[in-house]
């Protein structure tokens, strides 16, 4: 025990050689603070460990008063150290929560599907109201930021494309480049990421707080299925809002590219618009809509699942919120790769 003073160590050492008795004179100590008390307990603990009978003399009433607040016997029990876990066990510690989360997500998915199919769950009069409320939060509320980011990205993309293309004298392909990359990839992807950051976090935090405040228990107790009441409107709203936002994003981004094309590259309005409409196919727009719908539902599901499974107070809500954004963005990218593979590479 390194915390013990050398004097005390000498005392204990001496005692261990001699008759295993030692006396600690405290009569000169006028006052003890918490550190002093802790020192005293460490000394007694160390003596006990070395099987030395350490006795105290000159203990002032204030010290014994302090010890009337604590149980010295309990404090002298050596600290238990958790047994060291091996690699497999540690791997399991990390993996099990992830597997549990995936399992919870799957259960939620099944339950939501069940509530949609099952019409016997009764009054869903207020369901429509909650759906439109969610739509307003997640859809209309996001128009500003989605439009702004879309405009700037369209502009940036046009600039980047122009720098490369003008080397080959292919200036006029700026329009095609912007239209195709925005509609197929950047529009749905950026919109989904914005939705994850904006609505995914908010859903997870809201549901998590409701769990902590026992509001979800209260719903269940009132005979209201929390999945139907909370999850279904949110998933529905995001599944509808995200493709709309993606179309908005793409349109404004193409407009941003158009401004650059017209005023910097000097392509002319009509040329740019014609090039854009030639470059885009109906399949691009449909694919973009389909992708966004899937991304939106994904964000809502992940956020709801993590939010409803919050444990451990405010810290748990924080973790769920972070987890919702990180996991949704990861899953969005994975699903995007799958889409590209199926729609472009496969076809």
């Amino acid at each position, binding site marked *: 025990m390194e915390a013990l003073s050398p004097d005390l160590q000498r005392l204990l050492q001496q005692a261990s050689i001699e008759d295993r008795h030692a006396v600690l004179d405290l009569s000169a100590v006028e006052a003890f603070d918490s550190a002093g008390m802790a020192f005293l307990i460490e000394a007694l603990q160390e003596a006990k460990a070395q099987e030395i009978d350490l006795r105290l003399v000159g203990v002032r009433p204030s010290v*014994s008063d302090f010890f009337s607040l604590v149980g010295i016997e309990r404090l002298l029990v050596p600290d238990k150290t958790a047994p060291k876990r091996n690699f497999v066990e540690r791997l399991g510690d990390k993996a099990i929560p992830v597997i549990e989360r995936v399992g919870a997500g799957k259960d939620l998915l099944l339950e939501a599907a069940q509530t949609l199919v099952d019409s016997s769950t009764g009054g869903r009069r207020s369901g429509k109201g909650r759906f439109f409320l969610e739509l307003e939060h997640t859809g209309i509320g996001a128009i500003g930021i989605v439009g702004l980011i879309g405009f700037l990205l369209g502009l940036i993309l046009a600039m980047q494309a122009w720098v490369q293309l003008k080397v080959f004298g292919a200036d006029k392909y700026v329009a095609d480049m912007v239209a195709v990359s925005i509609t197929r990839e950047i529009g749905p992807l950026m919109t989904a990421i914005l939705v994850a950051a904006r609505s995914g976090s908010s859903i997870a935090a809201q549901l998590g707080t409701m769990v902590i405040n026992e*509001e979800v228990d209260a719903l269940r107790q009132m005979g209201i299925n929390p999945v139907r009441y909370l999850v279904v409107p949110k998933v529905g709203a995001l599944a509808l809002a995200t493709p709309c936002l993606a179309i908005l994003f793409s349109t404004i981004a193409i407009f941003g590219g158009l401004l650059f094309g017209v005023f910097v590259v000097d392509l002319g309005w009509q040329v740019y618009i014609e090039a854009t409409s030639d470059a885009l196919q109906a399949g691009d727009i449909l694919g973009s809509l389909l992708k966004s719908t899937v991304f939106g539902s994904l964000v809502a599901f992940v956020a709801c699942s993590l939010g409803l499974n919050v444990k451990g107070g405010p810290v748990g809500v924080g973790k769920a919120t972070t987890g919702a954004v990180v996991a949704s963005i990861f899953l969005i990218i994975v699903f995007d790769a799958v889409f590209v593979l199926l729609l472009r590479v496969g076809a």
Partner: protein
Amino acid sequence: MRIFKRRPRIPKELLNRTPPTEELIRGIALETSFDGRTVLKGVDLSVLQGEVFVILGPSGCGKTTLLRHLSGMLPPTMGIVQLFGRDLYTLKGKELAEMRGRMGFSFQGGALLNSMSVLENVSLPLHESSRLAPARIERIAKLKLDMVGLLHAAQLSPSSLSGGMKKRAAIARAMALDPELIFFDEPSAGLDPITAVEVDNLILKLNKVFGITMVVVTHDIPSAFMIADRMIMLSEGRILARGTPDEIRENKDSKVQDFIHRALPAEEQRSGGLARFLKT
């Protein structure tokens, strides 16, 4: 229209009934553990129709867990809960929903939905499980709010209510579907003594007027003795004593007496054990 299918509630006094003996809840050998820590170690109890049944005990003795078992929120690790003669944890779907409609729950912190007003909170169960016209639902909800003395706060948001008002609003919401049984989790926790007495009086009033069976979990000794028809005292996951308040008061068990008289158990009145280390 379930609300109207149920038999109308007539004040007990008018019916001049003999004290009811019908068993509403029965818990058999309830045992529960969380992460290897045993919380309940074999609890048997029965709650009779129309009584105020109090589960009394110190913090952490497992009483809230017991209440969650009895109200269908959390299945026990072992044992059976029977409600209205049915095994609660075997019910599913419609039957479970119907059972839930027969009981209300008042949570410790109220658990009002923060996204809606007090009135909307009370109307919510009605909107969800009845097909009544919205205007009628609002009238019923206002009736319930007036019963708990909160009509003036109907349009307020739950976050702007005081602790006592939140509890009363939660009671109004628990009353929304005319339940036969209401569970209370610590109704007087966090309230000043005056407000706590008000909530106790409200529980008694609702019990007397509507004959609603009340199961109340509390650590508040004066409140428990004031409202209980019968009570159990829980300690470290076991029932220490059961009976009417008078029988509990007469109980000879030293732990029971210590708890009632708010004294520390003998072993806790320690001198710190420093004496052993003093040189004589």
